[in-house]
């Protein structure tokens, strides 16, 4: 099988902010054509990693290669192949939607006719055709995010960084953005997606790297990561008037490794087994325990993160 080409290769990256070690011998490999997710809580080093790769931040040690070439601030040929969608909207408030996209596209594409075509396509891609002449201040938060994306992708880059592009975005715009990223990938672009929203990363990314405190915590596909967790299922039951002795009976069931009471709900964690819900229901009936809502959840990346670091992703 042919070896996949790497779009990004980061080796032993160390970045210090005075006393704070932001990146601790961090390694990263992103293959061409994939959607790579960089997942971690706020302050874990996702944006620092991205800014180092883009030669915006200096770093103390390590090596960074993009498309097989060393990345430097004056690597203009490489930069021309890269698109960036920043976490904060980065547009000119004085330029219209069209002019903003045209400005950024023009910094990469010098041919005027080609640029015009690219700008139109980018605006259509994010669905801002009706807002071409609008100034950014007239756009809603969701539309602004779309403009931000259009500015980052108009020049048809081969590698696109999305740094938390859905922060403070309404659900509809969020879905549009995620669908758009999927489309860009289908058109051939390699995507690096950083986020602290595990649901988005799960939904979007082929491979995921979970990081914390500047270090790689885990890496793999969604399924590979979930296998790292001993949790296979979590069942939550709303119970009324349950006694401690009855709770202890649940702890004795096969494959249950943890039972906790949380706000009137009994949370039961399983490390395997099948038909777990049926066995729970039987025990509830046998013990004549009154119950209300019952839910069954499969493990999430948060469970993986929780197990490895001892804290929630959202912390």
């Amino acid at each position, binding site marked *: 099988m042919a070896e996949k080409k790497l779009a990004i290769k980061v080796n032993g990256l160390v970045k210090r*902010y005075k006393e704070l070690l932001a990146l601790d011998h961090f390694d990263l490999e992103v293959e061409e054509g994939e959607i790579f997710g960089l997942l971690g809580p706020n302050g874990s080093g996702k944006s620092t990693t991205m*800014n180092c790769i*883009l*030669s*915006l*931040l*200096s770093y103390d040690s390590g090596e960074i290669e993009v498309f097989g070439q060393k990345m430097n*601030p*004056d690597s*203009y*040929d490489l*930069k*021309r192949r*890269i698109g*960036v969608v*920043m*976490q*904060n*909207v*980065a*547009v*000119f408030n*004085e*330029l219209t939607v069209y*002019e903003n996209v045209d*400005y*950024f596209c*023009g*910094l*990469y594409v*010098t041919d005027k006719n080609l640029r015009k075509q690219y700008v139109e396509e980018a605006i259509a891609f994010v669905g801002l055709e009706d807002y071409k002449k609008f100034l950014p201040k007239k756009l809603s938060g969701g539309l602004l995010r779309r403009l931000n994306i259009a*500015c980052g992708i108009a020049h048809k880059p081969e590698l696109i960084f999305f740094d938390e592009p859905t922060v403070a975005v309404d659900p509809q715009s969020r879905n549009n953005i995620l669908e758009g990223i999927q489309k860009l990938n289908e058109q051939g672009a390699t995507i690096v997606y950083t986020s602290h929203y595990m649901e988005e990363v799960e939904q979007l990314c082929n491979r995921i790297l979970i990081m914390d405190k500047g270090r790689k915590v885990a890496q793999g596909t969604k399924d590979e990561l979930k296998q790292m967790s001993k949790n296979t299922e979590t069942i939550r039951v709303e119970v009324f008037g349950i006694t401690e002795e009855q709770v202890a009976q649940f702890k004795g069931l096969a494959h249950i490794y943890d039972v906790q009471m949380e706000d009137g709900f009994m949370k039961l964690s399983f490390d395997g087994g099948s038909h777990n819900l049926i066995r729970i229901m039987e025990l509830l009936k046998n013990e004549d325990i009154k119950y209300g809502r019952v839910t069954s959840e499969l493990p999430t990346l948060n469970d993986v993160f929780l197990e490895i670091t001892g804290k929630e992703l959202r912390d």
Partner: protein
Amino acid sequence: MFGHIFKNAIKVAVREKTSLFWSFIFPIVLATFMFIAFGNIMEKDELFHEIPVAFVKEEGASLGLSYMLEAMGEGEEAMLSVQTVTAEEAQKLLDDKKVEGIIYEDGCKLVVLKESMNSTILEEILLLYKQNETVMMDMLASSTMQLAEDAASVPGDLEELVKGMTERATYYKEVHFTEGSQNKYYNYFYAIFAMSCLFASFSAMSSIGRIQADCGALGMRRNMVPTHKMLTIVAEFTALLLIQFLAEVIALGYMALLGMDFGSRIPFILLILFFGVSIGLAIGTIVGSVKKIPEAGKVGICVAVGMVLSVLADLCVGGLKHQLELHAPIINRINPAALITDSFYSLGVYDDYGVLFRNVATLGIETVILLVIAYLMVKKSRYKEL
């Protein structure tokens, strides 16, 4: 690429309302206020107005004084505004300060309320009249005697004599070394140019802030593009120079419409404005290049710098520049606002361009120094932190 960045910098600059106000509106508004304020003072201080005077006639008196006063109150260059009234009416007009004095035909007397420039003029007029009247009366008396001896020749001589008395010979010629106005109030208008040139700093400050990665998301984004930072800085500075220079030219045109006389040395005025705008932009560039100061703080610094330098150049308090010239002349030699106002003033006062060229050269050197320092501050392409 230069053209692309330049074109968009122009668009941003003309749509940035704050900078637009300070560049285009502020000098026009300030010039209008100054024109309204100083226009009256100029008219009072600089222009001569007819002196209102009451004239009390005497029955049976000779008509000489009456004719003279009437003649002095006629035409476009009239010196007096004469009201012929009774003694009581004249006194009332004087008490109400509607006239500067009363001239009584009887004895050719002058009554004024207080000593003033106008009362002195009236006194001089009457003195001159009295002298001429005496001479004429003497001549008339002697000519009457001569008439008996030679009736044919005397009238011709008398005519010549009268003509000689009334003629005023001028033994010097007025020569203008310069064509500009030497009106002292123009200094305030020159200071407006100085101030608006310095306030060009706002646009440069915003512009340089948008290029630095550690000054916001847009700066970060622009540092990721495949364009050399120096090219962006030069293109945007050139665009701002053009816009701000245009703003000064518009202000100049507006002031000319208000009736200000800038002479015919327009190319030199444009030269002053060009270098004035350059130093303003350079100040904004260096203020904008300072890290760790929020944008509002930088705006405050630009305002403070512009105001202080303008005040030192006499925008608000007349005489401060003169005091600096006496006690700390170096400040006037390096203060951009003083250099700009002095350059304008030198065009109106001196017949050579020594002062102008020295000042413009100083402005140019200051601009280059500030821009080099600013570039050294922002040239880095990789940041330690963002």
